[in-house]
């Protein structure tokens, strides 16, 4: 989607993206010539359609700031670095989980934590991840 400043006949540039509020996304555009600003406010259906493409609206900076929600969050409680059972994730192991698709991540984390608990580990590091891979035949 593009916006055009009709009086100037100039494409408007994206200024900012606000995180979704009750399903609505606020995207501000401005005209580089006259400085006129306008906001596009989406309804929940429009927000969800774009979200369903697996993309994040805006500049790379805006994208990094506005992390999307896991679609499985309704099924699995969010995990802190230390789980309810006291199993901790090292920074390196946690960082490796970032390569897991967002929707799979909570489920994969739960499975790995279960493996760690059953194996008697209190901390999940890269070595434990490697052991889990071996256990599951990878």
């Amino acid at each position, binding site marked *: *989607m*593009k*916006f*055009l400043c*009709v009086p100037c*006949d100039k*494409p*408007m*540039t*994206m200024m900012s993206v606000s995180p*979704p509020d*009750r*399903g609505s996304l606020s*995207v501000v*555009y401005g005209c580089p010539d006259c400085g006129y600003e306008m906001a596009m406010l989406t309804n*929940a*259906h429009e*927000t*969800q*359609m*774009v*979200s*369903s*493409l*697996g*993309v*994040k*609206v*805006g*500049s*790379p900076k805006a*994208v990094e700031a506005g992390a999307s*929600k*896991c*679609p*499985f*969050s*309704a*099924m699995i409680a969010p995990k802190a670095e230390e789980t309810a059972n006291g199993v901790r994730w090292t920074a390196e192991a946690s960082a*490796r*989980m970032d*390569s*897991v*698709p*967002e*929707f*799979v991540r909570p*489920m*994969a984390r*739960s*499975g*790995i934590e279960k*493996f760690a608990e059953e194996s008697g580990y209190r901390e999940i590091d890269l070595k434990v*991840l*490697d052991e*889990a*891979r071996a256990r*599951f*035949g*990878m």
Partner: protein
Amino acid sequence: MKSYHDIAGDGGSRIAEQVEAGREKIARALSGVRHRVAIGSGKGGVGKSTLTRALASALTARGLTVAILDADLNGPTQARMSGLAGAVPVPGPEGLALPRSSDGVRVFSIGEMVPESQALEFASVAAGDAHTWRATKEFAVLGELLGSIAWGRLDVLLFDLPPGAERTAQFVDFLGAETTLVLVTIPSDVSRGVVARSAAAVSKSPCRVAGYVQNMSGYLCPDCGEVKPLFPESDGVPLDLPLLGRVPFDPALASACDRGEPFASRPIAEVADRLVAFLETPR
């Protein structure tokens, strides 16, 4: 006044750029995969998933490296049939590593992580209107999976498709022109009719259709070893596709799938032989 195409870029949303980046990531991840084979039908309950699993075993037995992506996110069965329920994928240095069944087939299935007592749910800001966005979301999820899994060198990547003639065409479109489609039917006219419709739906796709498998083509009696009719034979609905083989209903196969154990049979091995021959034929 300028029109849309007079303005370079995409207005700052970066959506087109991200979609393209996603496609490139998928292409990189699948670069070591020799053959992509989608097993579909259009008709539900004809044994697509069972046949996918059995074909994977038969191909592996030929020394081929095989993986399965269970693309039926809402009715995943490959985890159970591969004995991998609870075996979660784990990230490695090269990407997401997949659990391996006892016969060496790597499998991704939502069923590895979501218990059978739970349905697949996506959180949404447009709750109650899932019919407007759910299919888009599912394809985005599959795309992210394809690009994130460390497929490595594979001879065959099998896709177990969900039912639906139009869905079959959508999946083939999504998986790209390099994909080979195998359709599965049972002998009934009802099933053959749906499969004929699926074949028509994919006819404009650049993918290749290897042919169809007639599943449940009789009943293999465990007592006398004879194949007896299960459905009335009928040629009322012609399928203008090569027949890759007839696979009789076999209680031993059904039982092996329930237990998550590999299964081999001569009819499935013959289907595998014909499929391999087709895959090795230049496009």
